[in-house]
Structure formats: structure tokens, C-alpha cells
């Protein structure tokens, strides 16, 4: 059994930043957790009922209250600022020069459409793959996420990317893989009876290998 709190290794350009925030929060909350629970246990032992001892008649102290209002306030403000940067980078600053795909989710499959040799989507030489997503390493992949029936959620754990696909909307998601290999594509939003089977493989090639693969695909 793996009781670890370490995240699995990340392979996208944003996973580093996201994991960093996670570990910062893990440390802060970890320290607070140990501190408060230890204090609680200490009080329980130290001030347990003993015959003839009367508790202190104490209603509280405004100074202390202010202190422990301010400390969490500053912590969360700090975390908020940290998070905002990464969030904007992932959700709002789509890098230029990316490779555009269309990913269409339907019960219970992922359908990816790739631009053909002309490099443009929506042309005759487009080709597509089912429950598989192939992409070159080191280049931003900009996905237009669509759903045909119900909500689905596009989830690549190794890239720390998750985004719901909403019918009637085109949602842009991007990622840039940092290492060739096989990764997992899953659906993270309950989408019906076959939800659990709605998974596929993400294959990341070197630029050259990708060209080769794309060529064979568009040839068919």
C-alpha cells in the first residue's frame, strides 16, 4: 500500500509549478496539523479532570484572537497570490505557435482530430484517432474541447491537466509535454454507465517521430 503524499512524476511544462504549490500547501498544512493536534492532546492530558481542581475562569483575550485571525489571513493571501500566477498561465495565457487539435468527447470515447499536412484544421486532409491522443514533445498542443452529449472531463494526470468538456461550448485547453512516452487520458466527470471505460492513451513522440506518424495517418 502506498501511503505516500508525493505526487506522481509530472511531464508537462506546468506540472512543476503546480506540484510546487501543492508541496508548499502540504508543508504549511502539515505543520499546522501536527501543531494543533499535538497541542490538543497535550491539553487533554495536562488539564484532565483531577479531584478538587477547578478550571480557570477565563473568557478569552482579544489580543490573542487578533493574532490568530491575522496569521491564517496572511497565509491564505500568500497562497492565493501564488496560485493566481499559475492559474492564469494555464487557463488564460495560451502560448502562441501551438499545434491545434479538436478533441470531441461523446459517451464513451475521446475523438481527436489532427490537422493534416497543410497544418490547418477543418480541411479535407484532417485525420482523427479514437481514444488516443498523439502529440510531439516540446511543442504547445492547443486543444479545442467539445462534447456531443453530456459533460465529460479531459484529464491527463501526468500533465496535471483537467478540463470539463461542455456540450454547446468550445473550450480551449493547452499542454506542452516535456518527455516522449505513453501517458493516460481519462474522464473525470461522471458521464453515464460507461464512464469508467472512457479512457485512452496519450502518446508523445519526438518531433521527427511525430512527423513520421502524422504522415502515415494522413496517407490513409
Amino acid at each position: 500500500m502506498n501511503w505516500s503524499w508525493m505526487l506522481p512524476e509530472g511531464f508537462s511544462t506546468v506540472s512543476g509549478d503546480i506540484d510546487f504549490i501543492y508541496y508548499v500547501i502540504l508543508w504549511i498544512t502539515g505543520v499546522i496539523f501536527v501543531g494543533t493536534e499535538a497541542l490538543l492532546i497535550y491539553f487533554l492530558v495536562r488539564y484532565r479532570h483531577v479531584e478538587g481542581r477547578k478550571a480557570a475562569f477565563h473568557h478569552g483575550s482579544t489580543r490573542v484572537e487578533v493574532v490568530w485571525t491575522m496569521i491564517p489571513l496572511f497565509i491564505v493571501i500568500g497562497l492565493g497570490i501564488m496560485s493566481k500566477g499559475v492559474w492564469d498561465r494555464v487557463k488564460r495565457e495560451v502560448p502562441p505557435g501551438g499545434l491545434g487539435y479538436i478533441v470531441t468527447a461523446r459517451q464513451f470515447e475521446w475523438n481527436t482530430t489532427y490537422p493534416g499536412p497543410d497544418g490547418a484544421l477543418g480541411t479535407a486532409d484532417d485525420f482523427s484517432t479514437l481514444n488516443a491522443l498523439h502529440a510531439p514533445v516540446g511543442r504547445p498542443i492547443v486543444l479545442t474541447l467539445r462534447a456531443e452529449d453530456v459533460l465529460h472531463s479531459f484529464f491527463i494526470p501526468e500533465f496535471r491537466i483537467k478540463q470539463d468538456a461542455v456540450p454547446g461550448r468550445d473550450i480551449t485547453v493547452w499542454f506542452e509535454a516535456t518527455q516522449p512516452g505513453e501517458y493516460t487520458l481519462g474522464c473525470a466527470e461522471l458521464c453515464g454507465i460507461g464512464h469508467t471505460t472512457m479512457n485512452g492513451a496519450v502518446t508523445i513522440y519526438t518531433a521527427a517521430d511525430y512527423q513520421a506518424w502524422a504522415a502515415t495517418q494522413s496517407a490513409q
Partner: protein
Amino acid sequence: MSTTEKEILHAGGGGGHHEHHELPFLRKYIFSTDHKTIAKQFMFVSLFFLVVGGALASLMRWQLGFPGQPMPGGGILPDAMMAPTPDGAIMLPEFYNSLVTMHGTIMIFFAIMPLLVGVFGNLLIPLQIGAEDMAFPRLNMASFWLAVPAGILMLASFGVEGGAAGAGWTSYAPLSSSGEWTGVYLGQQLWLASLAVLGFSSLAGAVNYISTVINMRAPGMTWFRIPLATWALFITAILILLAMPILAGALIMLLFDQTIGTAFFRPQYGGEPLLWQHLFWFFGHPEVYILILPAMGITSEVLSNRARKPIFGYHSMVLAIIGIAFLGWIVWGHHMFMSGMNPLLGTSFMISTMAIAVPSAIKVFNWLATLWKADIHFDSPMLHALSFVSMFIIGGLSGIFMASTPVDMYIHDTYFIVAHIHYVLFGGSLFAIFAGITFWFPKMFGRMMNEPLNKVHWALTFVFYNLVFFPMHNLGVQGMMRRIYDFTQYDYLQPLQPMNRFITISAFLLVASQSLFVISFFWSIFKGRKATDNPWDSNTLEWTVPSPPPHGNFAEIPVVYRGPYEYSSPESDRDFLPQTEPPRGMPASAPAPAT
């Protein structure tokens, strides 16, 4: 008494019509307007639903612990739920989805919420503020008798064609908006209808609680002399009052989509799925605080009493409750970070969500400080209350991970969320409910509970509870999605099988150990030691009347002289000082201080 007041008492509806002669059986036990009886009725019904919810969870855990393996005794369930095979019955995915949905719905709306609001709201509010009953006793009765049909509708949906609702307790449209996506038609409609009826029930309760607390306080019971349990229940009632109608509206629109085929949430006709999510969570997040605020109030009562020490910072505790309730209205978007919502909204919702950590932290620190230099008695109510505090710390801290939008991108819709919600609702609310039941049981039934049995029950629950839910954090960190019928479909989740099996076994033991509480509960009702008026040496008003209190509660309306938590006050030779005890040198007959 002026004509105005006479008129008012007429107009005040039941304001307190006390037939002191014996009531016929039906009026006394079934269609009673006595808030204490209604509290008991709510308790029996919602404890029953707690058992149902636990059973559903166990079924779910079997599938997760032993994916695709035949379930012992599963054969007794109909083929629509379990596929019969030569070597036993295997759970069907559609049934698993129904289990996910119904476990959440039943636990939240039919177990935890009625236990906190229906039971303790009804029992405590009039007693703690010194009122003879609720402002509108008949409305109060209606509130219970609306909850019953709602529960029946919900359970009935298991038996109908297509099975029970299977779109999750959040019933996200479009999955829930038409049976074509799930194969569940009538089940989903019953789910919607049941919750709509339940909405009316909670509304009737809320109107009653709010009016009662505002208008029926005893002389001297100023706002800042109200015990924290009643404070929390009052604020909760306000949240219910304003949040439930939003859900009702959304439910009705979804019901129309389902039945007559309107297009509110059906994109193929131009509907907006995100509108459902916004309406649902605009209700749903206040709902989260409806489920935790009363628990905080109960904990404060028990903690201060069993620590024989005034609650630390009573005023900031009250302000924290109000602050949480207010912030609760502007954080709903943190359930929707990944929903395709405008990223700018994501940022603002992250800020407000982080902000809500502050009042929660204040409450935890105040509870800790209450124990400092205290005189702690480890009775079962106290053990449960302390468990609430320590578990709420975990639940609160794990919430910070999700509040941070980038981290949420990874852990959203994983078991990390499942762990968090159970640390708040089980480790939080349910432990507080146990604390409350064991603490006020003597007042409700006039007998003490079986203390040794309760202690054993507490110990087993605390251990197994943590063995079940703590590892779920790790599952989430490994990336295991929630609401997933068979995680072994994903290669990278294969290694998690042992841990899931471990959780499942612990879950069975957790459920089994609850039987001890059932035994202790019923044994104590009939065989428990007779309780005195004030077995816990408590200060608040409910302990100044007999256990159980008579119809009409107070022989005469009490007069309140001080706050509720004057424990170990030097002013008294005992270690407690009831709110009704006149200050030294002041005759009991003296007029009350101005309200």
C-alpha cells in the same frame, strides 16, 4: 394585559396553546405539535436513513474493494442491480452510479441535515431561549410530515423501472436532464420531486426557527446571552430559508426538462448546462454550511460544559458563525473551477474561498483555547466533541488544497475530494451529532445513556473512521477519480487495489461498529438510569426543567441574568452558574435586566 397583546397571542397562531389535559394518542405521538416530540420523530426517521445510507456505502465499497467480483449474498438483489453469474452476482455499473447518487443524497438531505436541523433545531431552540414552544407549532408538525413522504419517494425510486437516479447527488445536467443519457427516467424524476418536497419541509422549519429565536426569547435572553448551539441553528435557518428556494427553482426546471421536455439545461436545444451548476452550487455551498454550523454549535456547548470552563471568545465565536454564513454565499464557484467557467471568476472565487478559512481557523483555535487550563471530563459526549475538533482540523486543512485553483486542476474529482468531504461531514457533522445525542439524550428521554457501551462505540468509530477515510487522500494524490465503477480499467490505478481493499474492510468494520450505538440507544430508552434535571451540571435553560420537559416546557417563563458559559465562576461555590440564578444579593423575584 392590553388588547394588543391578546390579539397578538391570537395572531401568534400556536404561539403556545397548551392543552395541559392528556392528549389522545394520535395528537401526542403521531401528529404532535410539541417541538420535543417532533424532534424525536425526526431523530428516529433520520437515524433510519443514516443506516440506509451506510448500507449503500457498504455496497459501493464492495465493488471498489473487489472490482467485478461476485458479491456474497448479492444474489438477493434484483437482476437490474446485480448481474447473476454462475459463481455469484456481480454489480452492474448503472447500479453503482445509483449507489453513488443515492448514498450522497440520502446522507446529506435525509440523514445529516434532519439530524442537525430537524432534531437539534426543534429540541434546543425553544428550550435554550426559554420559550414554551415554537412560534408556529402546527407549521412545525407540517415540516416533519412533509419530510416523511419526501423520504418515501426517494426510497421508492430504487424499485422503479430503470432504477434510482444515477447522475450523482449534484445531478449535473445534461446527464440528469434526460433519460436518454443514463437510462434512468422515473428514478431521476422521483429524485427531483422528493427533494422539492423536502425543500418545503426545511422551509417550514426555517420560518419557525427564525421567528422563534427573534420573537420568543425569555426576558434577559439578549442576543449575546444565546447559547452557541442556538446561534448556529438560527444562522443555519437563515441559510436554509434563502438557499432552498434557489434549489427548488432549479429542481423544477430540471424536472420540466425531464418530463415535458423543456430546454433549460439541454444544450442540443440551446439550454445551458452551466446554469444548472451555478444554481445548484449557489444553493449547494450554503448547504455545506447548513451541514457544519449546527455541528460547530453543538461542539461548543459540549466542549465548554465538559471542560467546565467558559467558551474562549464567545463573541468571536458568534461573529465567526455569521462570517462563515455570509462568505458562504460568495464561494460557490470553487466547486466549478474545472467546469469551463470564466477563469477570471475562478480567481475571485479562489480568493473568497481562501478567506473563509479564516473564520473556520478562529473557531478551531477558540476550541483549543477553551481546553487550556480547563477541567476536562472524558464522557462520551466530550470524546465525540473532541473527535469533531481534531477531524475538522483535517477536513479544514485539506480544503486549502482544493481552494488553490492550480492544485485543484489535479485533485478535482479525485478521491482527495471524497476524503475531504467525509472528513467534514462524517468526522465533522456526524461526530458532533453523536456528541449531541449522547449529551441531550437524558433531556429527550429522561434516562442516561449506557456510558461504557458509548465509549466502546466511540473508540471503534474513531479508529475505523480514520482507517477508511485517511487513505482516500493518498488515493486522490495518486490520481484515482471519484464516482468510478471500476478503477482497474486504468493501468496506472492498478497498484491501488490493496489500499482500496484495506479501505473496504475498514468500512465494513466501521458500519458494523455502529450497531453498538443502536443497541446502546434503544437499551437506554427503556433500561437507562433515570436522569436528573441537570445531569451535566450545565448552565443553559434546558437543564432547569424536568427531564423530559413537560408540554409547554417552563412552568413560568424563566428570567435570564447572564451568559450561557459561566463555568467555574468564582461567583459560585459550585463549578457552574445557571443563566437563571440571580446575581448574589439579588432576590429571585427581581425584574429582569432589559432585553
